[in-house]
């Protein structure tokens, strides 16, 4: 059963949200999802690019009023 973990990285500057995502990816199981909440504009571009490069999977990216939900699934 896959789980979803939320990381509230709002207020953190680049590359803080990415680093928090990567640290958390080490802790969760394959198939689990991580929902990164980020107010850093660059994360909405950088995190999907990183996910594509290292071959995890983007599940969803959604913009709220002043932050983004960036949902990533651990593949390997």
């Amino acid at each position: 059963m896959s789980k979803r973990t939320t990381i509230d990285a709002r207020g953190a500057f680049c590359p803080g949200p990415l680093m928090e995502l990567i640290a958390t990816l080490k802790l969760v199981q394959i198939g689990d999802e991580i929902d990164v909440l980020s107010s850093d504009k660059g994360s909405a571009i950088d995190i999907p690019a990183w996910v594509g490069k290292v071959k995890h999977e983007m599940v969803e990216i959604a913009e709220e009023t002043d932050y983004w939900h960036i949902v990533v699934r651990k593949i390997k």
Partner: protein
Amino acid sequence: MTPTLFIILCSGEHEKIQMAAMTASVAAVSDRPVEVFVSMNALALFRKDFDRTHYEGGEFSKLMQERKVPDAIELFEQGKVLGDMKIYACSMAMDVAQIELGDLFGELVDDAGGLTKFLSDAESGQLIVF
């Protein structure tokens, strides 16, 4: 495997140190091996007695410290823990400043190193200087 990114960090300016730390850590966590050669004024940053609350820099440094951007040393630490990064302290700068390897953060600095070997290794990758 992506070719190694080689970084020479010699400036003591906060802005350059921050950019080097961001570049090194993001590359390392993006499956790109990174080697950092630290020399000149940047060496002080890797001393155990370095005060992280007091970086020297210009206007942007003040802004970064006020707004609490990720600390440069912490970014290097994260890059090492989460990726493939090695940091070498320039043996010439250590001699001139009379710094021993034991004066530097052991968790950060892998070894003392010479510029000749670093440049030779860097022929196989890309080199950036800060």
